[in-house]
């Protein structure tokens, strides 16, 4: 059994950001990320401005900064890559401490790190303030094709069922003395996954039968159409609005 609310990234709350309809948040997130990506990478101040606005939004949401911080671990592979870029990139070299590194590489690494970090924080904020089912409803509202909405909704519903099944299979396997200690045991793990796949496939068929029995004809009924007021669009528009202004100003100044 999972947590009482939605998914593992969700942080329960009732802030203005939590209350925004999911589709507003999705649109705001995409616009914000686009504005950040379009910001010229040669100047530092626009990124400081983006970060300030974003941290402001996190404070409004009352999601603790530490909560966002610990979940930023997901970015680590990109950080490692960004740190390597200055060493492997070509071009004129500059001295940074004891190292001679590529100057264009340094700029590229900075841009990757800054844009990536802003994107990750924004995504975490959206995830922390939106329950998974609302997210699916939001995508539906944004006219994401029905098959994709249905796939997401089923994934949401059955992840725990399949994980439960896998853990029962693991317990049953281990109860008969199995321990995966070396590569020679991999075939057993392969069979487990194969069996899990077949079981899930068969469950899919049974679910489909049960749906047909209740009159399913290709479309899921809408998951509570939640419309956004112009006020909510205005609130959701603040952060991307600021980001677009910052980006525009940076572009003008860079000229």
């Amino acid at each position: 059994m999972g947590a009482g609310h939605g998914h593992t990234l969700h942080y329960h709350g009732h802030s203005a950001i939590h209350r925004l309809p999911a589709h507003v948040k999705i649109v705001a997130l995409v616009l914000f990320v686009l504005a950040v990506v379009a910001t010229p990478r040669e100047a530092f101040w626009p990124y400081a401005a983006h970060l300030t606005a974003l941290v402001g939004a996190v404070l409004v949401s009352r999601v603790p900064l530490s909560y966002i911080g610990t979940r930023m671990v997901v970015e680590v592979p990109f950080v490692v890559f960004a740190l390597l870029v200055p060493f492997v990139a070509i071009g004129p070299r500059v001295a940074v401490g004891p190292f001679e590194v590529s100057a264009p590489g340094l700029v590229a690494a900075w841009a990757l790190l800054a844009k990536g970090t802003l994107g990750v924080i924004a995504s975490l904020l959206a995830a922390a303030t939106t329950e998974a089912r609302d997210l699916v409803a939001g995508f539906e509202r944004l006219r994401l094709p029905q098959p994709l909405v249905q796939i997401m909704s089923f994934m949401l519903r059955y992840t725990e069922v399949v994980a439960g099944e896998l853990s029962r299979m693991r317990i049953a396997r281990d109860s008969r003395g199995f321990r995966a200690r070396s590569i020679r045991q991999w075939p057993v793990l392969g069979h487990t996954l194969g069996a899990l796949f077949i079981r899930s496939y068969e469950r899919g068929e049974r679910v489909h039968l049960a749906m047909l029995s209740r009159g399913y004809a290709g479309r899921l009924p809408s998951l509570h159409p939640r419309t956004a007021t112009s006020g909510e669009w205005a609130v959701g528009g603040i952060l991307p609005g600021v980001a677009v202004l910052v980006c525009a100003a940076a572009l003008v100044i860079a000229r």
Partner: protein
Amino acid sequence: MLDVRGLAFAYPDGHQALFGVDLHVHRGERVALLGPNGAGKTTLVLHLNGILAAGAGTVSVSGLEVTTNNLAEIRRRVGIIFQDPDDQLFMPTVRDDVAFGPANLGLRGDALDTRVLRALEQVGMDAFIDRPPHHLSYGQRRRVAVATVLAMEPEILIMDEPSSNLDPASRRELADIVRALDVTVLMVTHDLPYALELCERSVILSDGVIAGDGRTREVLADADLLARPRLELPYGFTVV
């Protein structure tokens, strides 16, 4: 009400599951369909709402024959509750799931909400309306599964192994719910005491044909009739 005549069916791989089944269920009856594993019970059930199409013979519900042209109406009239509630409950919340059937019938807005709430009240699960199904206990999920079908206001309710995996209290609660319903019930089971508790009449399906039909008490007291299809009362039970 439910009229099955000469129903025969073979799966595409050649395995023949039903060899001419005749079954008639009257309005308001609660009938147990008894049979061992592999007797063709589930195959028969899947014909009753047109999921499987008859190889020979006919199925009709309240005078309407099951054909590909009237599947929507047939599925409104025949509500099937499947054995595993995880197969039945697939929407993110209990509310969405109970609304799934009636929404497919075209209900919207207040009419839909009323229907959903009423169905959940009938199974005593209205307090759980906004919970995700996977956070409920197994017995609770089984009851919500019953509500998903009640919300369609079926004329006949078909329950596939309703008592399986339930603890004694959940089992009794489900029996109370079924008794309180004003609807025709066909209960598919090999749980003979449960059949006796809930159903006046029992029909035995064995090797794809109806092997016995009568008052549950008399059917369960007939040792010869039970022995052929490998049905047995649990240890220590006798019906007198």
